[in-house]
């Protein structure tokens, strides 16, 4: 009976399964199974940290009026914040718009717990804040009559009135007054001051508007009181200020402080003098060194000029009292502190302790963007240079001294020097001595005795899974920081004086890791390549990234750097050299001693340059190099004419990336081989001509052979464009003007069903163009930055980290942007989910949960010792670091692994088996006795 019924069953059952939705959902569920990427609540803060910064101070003020004493700062990064006076921590922070629209132009004095701020360009917005709570009280826009003169507009806020002051050349000054709280225009007045012209250098020191005319010793200072309706222009000669013998060129600038004053520098900035402007201009007959920074304030009723001089780590604060006829100087402080570097006073607050004794707190802002509070000694420092990081590398920590000593046992090189010990007896002696050392160290540690002094922090060593690393961050101020990755502590700092990025727009500097920390006894080495601030030629700075000590120091190159490259072969001491191409296409090797190694691989080494101004891309080969000289010769050139397009991005793959699988298995069990070209570079350009105005062009170029592989154009789109290029795919985002939404497009390159070459890829012999799969998706948020995760062996799936404008960083699985996501729901493949036009933003995929990070400028990812884990460092205005595991931690036991449960169960089973054995034998005995 059974077989006939079963056959009937089978037929129906199959149809039943296929018809029902259940089966389809089951497959989808299985494939989506690894898409849940959540954190658990108890993992918060265990391996991630966030640091908030404000940026370089532009304006600052002490708030002694309200209950909680704080410092209000407005910075160059368009941020206003309140800092705690005692610790420097941020009490509250408001981030204004980015770039031109949020630039803070005027800052009122703090009164009544309220602050008025003018920010923006054309037109400006006046915002009026409550300082205890940090929320806004009112906001109003100022209409600007002369939009092209916005840079010359000065603002003055006094007594609840905002003055908009615009100098008009050869005519006068236009003063418009507004009520600062409501925005009502009060009156507008024009003061005639014919001395203002384009050559004069003018400064507003309310209530006077002063201009310096002339360069030689006949220079005159013209001034006029702009708040007095019937004032007349007046003048004062340079000689009145300096006496005889002063020489140009002269410069005037406003002295920061509570009293209106300007400083005039002479003799090419070798000395300067002040001119007080409260009632009548009064020159101060006191010479101040040109390099010193000045600040003017008053202690009660006495006017004091504070002078700050910096010389080789020694900061001296001098106070000059100005009420008597002869100014009297007194040295207030003399500090030697590493954190101060050419500081300036930006704010002071003084409390009267007793007659004639003042306790003053000075807020100092150094040239390297750090903020310090000085009160007899430096109370705290904030390293605000970290708000603008330009280059990051994550470096492995070295092994502990003990482990390194074990390694040297087998170090061939060392033993080659001393032949006699490279024999059985010598090795035995070495091993015994190292083991004796280890025993000694162990006993010492067990007894809690002091370990031997090592010049290495005990916890800065490589941990078992390689998750503890050193983040080396280079900032735009020329300061390099070493941050350890576990808690975000600053380990070391280095200052590289007088450097800047290679181009004005991007501040970009290049950091290379020439040698890691795996080659004991050679120290790890990093090199920073930048441009000199004065001459623009290249500079190289070499340092040890683990302890922050300069190795070869600053080397000035006497040429401009056009392109640089890290060589893939190492010298005998495991150092990878850098090849630098200068603007005349001559190649240099750094360090020079590595030239032989570089020329030996010259035949197969190529370098390419992109000139954004002329749109010319060229490729060079080093095949004609001699063993002493590296010679570059051009092998290809192509032109993206700047008439039609402007190159915005040139993106290549990460050089340490590895691709694990050669192809993709399709539904019918055939293999689609990937086109993995390590020399492929994606070039993104924006249309500039009137025809091509809103187009985005993407070109894929093989930079060894110069052949273009693919090109694609998107019409009616707008930037900003963010692009990720990895393995055999590209993911890029843009703003679609027609539908007004952000879209993400993916390209994936395949060779086809057959592989062209099984063993090695050569750009010079491949001629077949790849098949490109493409797809576009809608993304429901705006993107600030994108980066892909990377692991050591490339086995883990790739996730794309997307930094959103709302402060979150989203981990987007690549499977969601796979271009082979089929529109046809019937066809199914492994690991491919059906197509949906909108990409979902899963809230549990946001790796920084509620620790928002604003104004993200870049994300850096690095592999760790575990294949499943990738380390992520997000930098921008804030810093955030965490770990992601795209395929969940498949190579480690999970954190809440029930060790106890297993032990208990095992123990229970063992015990119960013994007990039952005993009971059974007892029963047998009893029965035998029956």
């Amino acid at each position, binding site marked *: *009976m059974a077989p006939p019924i079963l056959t009937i069953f089978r037929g129906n059952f199959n149809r039943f399964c296929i018809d029902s939705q259940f089966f389809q959902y089951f497959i989808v569920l299985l494939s989506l199974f690894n898409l*849940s990427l*959540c*954190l*658990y*609540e*108890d993992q*918060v803060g265990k391996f991630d940290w966030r640091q908030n910064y404000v940026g370089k101070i532009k304006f600052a003020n002490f708030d002694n009026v309200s209950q909680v004493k704080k410092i209000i700062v407005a910075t160059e990064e368009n941020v206003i914040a309140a800092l705690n006076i005692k610790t420097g921590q941020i009490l*509250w922070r*408001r*981030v*204004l*718009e*980015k770039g031109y*629209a*949020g630039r803070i132009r005027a800052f009122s004095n703090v009164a009544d717990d309220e602050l008025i701020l003018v920010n*923006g360009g054309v*037109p400006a*917005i006046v*915002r009026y804040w*409550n300082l205890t*709570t*940090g*929320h*806004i*009280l*009112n*906001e*109003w*826009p100022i209409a600007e009559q002369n939009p092209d003169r916005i840079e010359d507009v000065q603002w003055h806020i006094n007594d609840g009135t905002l003055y908009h002051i615009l100098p008009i050349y050869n005519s006068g000054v236009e003063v418009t007054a507004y009520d600062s709280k409501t925005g009502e225009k009060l009156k507008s007045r024009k003061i005639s001051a014919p001395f203002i012209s384009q050559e004069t250098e003018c400064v507003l020191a309310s209530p006077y508007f002063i201009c310096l005319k002339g360069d030689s010793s006949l220079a005159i200072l013209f001034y006029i009181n702009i708040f007095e309706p019937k004032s007349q222009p007046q003048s004062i000669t340079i000689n009145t200020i300096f006496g005889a013998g002063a020489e140009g060129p002269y410069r005037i600038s406003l002295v920061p402080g509570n009293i209106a004053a300007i400083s005039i520098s002479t003799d090419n900035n070798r000395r300067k003098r002040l001119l007080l402007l409260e009632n009548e201009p009064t020159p101060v007959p006191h010479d101040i060194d040109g390099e010193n920074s000045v600040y003017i304030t008053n202690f009660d009723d006495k006017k004091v000029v504070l002078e700050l001089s910096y010389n080789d780590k020694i900061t001296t604060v001098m106070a000059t009292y100005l009420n008597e006829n002869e100014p009297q100087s007194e040295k207030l402080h003399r500090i030697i502190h590493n954190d101060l570097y050419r500081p300036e006073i930006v704010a002071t607050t003084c409390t009267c302790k007793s007659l004639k004794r003042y306790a003053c707190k000075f807020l100092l802002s150094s040239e390297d963007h750090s903020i310090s509070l000085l009160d007899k000694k430096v109370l705290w420092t904030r390293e605000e240079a970290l708000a603008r990081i330009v280059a990051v590398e994550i470096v492995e920590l070295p092994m502990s001294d003990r482990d390194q000593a074990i390694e040297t046992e087998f170090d061939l090189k060392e033993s080659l020097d001393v032949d006699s010990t490279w024999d059985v007896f010598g090795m035995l002696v070495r091993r015994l001595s190292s083991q004796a050392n280890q025993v000694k160290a162990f006993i010492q540690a067990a007894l809690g005795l002091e370990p031997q002094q090592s010049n290495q922090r005990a916890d800065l060593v490589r941990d078992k899974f390689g998750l503890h690393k050193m983040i080396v961050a280079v900032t735009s101020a020329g300061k390099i920081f070493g941050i350890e990755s576990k808690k975000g502590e600053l380990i070391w700092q280095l200052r590289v004086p007088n450097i800047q990025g290679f181009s004005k727009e991007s501040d970009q500097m290049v950091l290379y890791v020439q040698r890691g920390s795996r080659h004991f006894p050679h120290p790890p080495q990093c090199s920073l390549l930048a441009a000199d601030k004065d001459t623009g030629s290249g500079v190289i700075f070499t340092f040890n990234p683990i302890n922050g000590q300069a190795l070869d120091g600053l080397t000035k190159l006497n040429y401009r750097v056009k392109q640089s490259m890290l060589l893939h072969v190492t010298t005998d001491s495991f150092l990878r050299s850098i090849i630098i191409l200068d603007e005349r296409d001559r190649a240099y090797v750094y360090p020079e001693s590595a030239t032989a190694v570089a020329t030996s691989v010259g035949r197969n080494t190529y370098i390419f340059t992109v000139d954004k101004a002329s749109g010319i891309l060229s490729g060079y080969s080093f095949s004609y190099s001699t063993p002493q000289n590296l010679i570059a010769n051009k092998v290809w050139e192509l032109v993206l004419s700047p008439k039609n397009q402007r190159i915005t991005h040139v993106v290549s793959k990460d050089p340490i990336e590895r691709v694990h699988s050669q192809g993709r298995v399709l539904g019918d069990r055939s293999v689609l081989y990937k086109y993995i070209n390590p020399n492929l570079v994606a070039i993104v350009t924006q249309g500039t001509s*009137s025809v091509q105005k809103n187009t985005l062009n993407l070109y894929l170029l093989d930079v060894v052979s110069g052949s273009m592989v693919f090109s694609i154009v998107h019409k009616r789109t707008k930037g900003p464009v963010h692009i990720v290029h990895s393995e055999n795919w590209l993911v890029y985002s843009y703003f679609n003007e027609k*539908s*007004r*939404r*952000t879209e993400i497009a993916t390209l994936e390159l395949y060779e086809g069903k057959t592989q062209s070459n099984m063993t090695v890829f050569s750009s010079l012999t491949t001629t077949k163009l790849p098949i490109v799969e493409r797809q576009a998706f*809608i993304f*429901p*948020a*705006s993107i*600030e930055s994108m980066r892909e995760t990377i692991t050591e062996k490339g086995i883990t799936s790739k996730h794309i980290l997307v930094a959103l*404008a*709302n*402060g979150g960083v989203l981990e987007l699985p690549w499977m969601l942007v796979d271009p082979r996501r089929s529109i046809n729901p019937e066809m199914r493949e492994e690991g491919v989910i059906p197509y949906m*036009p*909108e990409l979902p933003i899963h*809230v*549990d995929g*946001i790796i920084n*949960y*509620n*620790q*928002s990070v604003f104004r993200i400028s870049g994300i850096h990812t690095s592999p760790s010792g575990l294949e499943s884990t990738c380390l992520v460092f997000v930098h921008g205005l804030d810093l955030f670091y965490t770990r992601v595991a795209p395929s969940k931690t498949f190579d480690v036991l999970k954190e*809440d692994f*029930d060790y106890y*449960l297993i032990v208990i169960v095992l123990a229970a089973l063992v015990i119960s088996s013994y007990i039952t054995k005993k009971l059974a034998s007892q029963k047998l005995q009893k029965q035998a006795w029956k």
Partner: protein
Amino acid sequence: MIQEIRFILAIFLVISSFSNSLAENEDDVSTDLYVIEGKVFSWENAGNTPWQLMTHVMANGGEYYGFLREDGTFTISNVPFGSYVIEVINPNYAYEPVRVEINSKGKFRARKVNLIQTSQVIQVPYPLKLRPLTPFRYFQMREQWRVTDFLFNPMVFMMILPLLFIIILPKIMNDPETKKEIEQLNNLTSYNMPEMSEVITSFFSSGEKQKAKTVKAVKKRQ
């Protein structure tokens, strides 16, 4: 006369079409700037927390910002005409975004954001009133170990249940009353479960089997 008119009309046609094409290329720059206003409501038990500090309003992904006053109202100033997506940014609560469109004559229209069907208009009151939708659930609950997980594990179940039977049944058996009850039950329900094959063969060849059964019965009696 008619030809003259036709001639003039043709010229107008040409001029208008050319000017049309020219006009398409020029940018219509209107210099009027507008202000977007609205109110953001806090979530329950926000109360005394500085929620206005943690929240701000963003237009078009950071092009313009609006900050909240004490009562939650905000203004975004200096906005030229166009279409803007207004979002409220808060690390703990999600708010629904709204699309505000200002046309060149200064008329405001607020509607829901639909990125797939961009022409769909579901209007939303302007000035904006933005309420929190749901708190963000960033975390996943850890799998708790419960005693029931352990007990209902099939392996454990298979182990423990037979154990219980083995221990308990003999105890029951030793009790005389229950013994009698069980025997009675057995008598009542003891008809042998008919073997499948026998049932089918009997069904198909009913005659012969009956005879065999009666012979059996007779035999038993003897």
